[in-house]
């Protein structure tokens, strides 16, 4: 029997109500222990208020070879960015 504990990815939401953020990985025999280990490993400095863990091999990731097709099209959608629009200075902050 392999006794190697599976790898988990850890996501933590910090104090300020932002989204959970990937902070790193660790090993644990199951999800419950992964949460506890995450508490001990990744919140030693009071970093978080909520923890998610997910088994690393259950993450589906976008394929790096499709990076072009996936992300390049948004390059041309310049109108999504506020700097695309010229607003006269006298209008004030917008």
């Amino acid at each position, binding site marked *: 029997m392999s006794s190697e*504990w599976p790898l988990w990815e850890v996501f933590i939401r910090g104090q300020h109500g932002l989204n959970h953020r990937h902070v790193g990985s*660790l*090993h*644990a*025999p199951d999800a*419950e*222990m992964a949460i*506890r*280990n995450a*508490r*001990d*490993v990744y919140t*030693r400095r009071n970093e978080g208020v909520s923890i998610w863990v997910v088994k690393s091999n259950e993450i589906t990731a976008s394929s790096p070879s499709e990076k072009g097709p996936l992300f390049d099209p948004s390059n041309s959608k310049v109108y999504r960015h506020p700097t695309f629009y010229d607003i006269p200075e006298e209008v004030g902050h917008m």
Partner: protein
Amino acid sequence: MPSLPDVMTPDVERLAAQAPRGAPTASHIDPHLAGPLVEFLMRTGDNALILGHRVSQWCGHSPALEEDIALANQALDLVGQCQLWLGLAGEVEGRGRSADHLAYRRDAAAFRNVLLVELPNGDFGQTLMRQFLFDAFHIELLRALTRSADPRVAEIAAKAQKEVAYHLERSADLVIRLGDGTDESRARMQAALTYLFPYTGEMMHDDAVDRALADAGIAPLPSSLRADWDRTVREVLAEATLTHPGQTYQHGIAGQGGGKRGVHTEHLGFILAEMQFLQRAYPDATW
């Protein structure tokens, strides 16, 4: 043990007599209670100190990195708690002894921790079982202390309670997992339980100090915590598929022995010889 001057804890009566002339912060304590209170604070602080010391010995040697980090957190919590308890002990005592002084300049006979916490780490299972048996008591003690008539005691207990609730969650869960794991892990946990169980009774055994503080509403009678401790232990052992040892001989209660009375196992002397080495060898130094 270096044969250097040792400061023994004076007896309770004499302390009680001295208390009114002691530190002004202790002035609202009934003079008859100061002695027992100091004694109790040392018991609670020494438990945390010695257990924290034992747990810290795993740092760098645990079976997995994640465990190494978790145990260090626990040791840090315990040493932190000991600073608060011993700090308050020194304050109430009013003889100018700091937490460090109490930790580093008393000899074994002046230590008041229960025998359980000074027992050797053994294998990782023994360490976890010792932790669980103590945590299950510790949490009940702290929970009761949050309602202490002494606000300083209640305040420390409130802080420590949060930490210890997590210690118990961890140690209980690991006892369950290892009991209900492989044949080997079960056998090891059962052996640890058999070895340690005779040292659990001392935690919940009352003496004159306990009765004085209970009467004043400062601390619970240890025996009043037994039912909850017992329930936790039975539940966890059952889920862990381990056999409860039942009624066994209990160390530290009958006769002259017992850590609460300052009569320890041989192990404590070695812990202190190591822990106090620098302070004893260089008494004039500051660190």
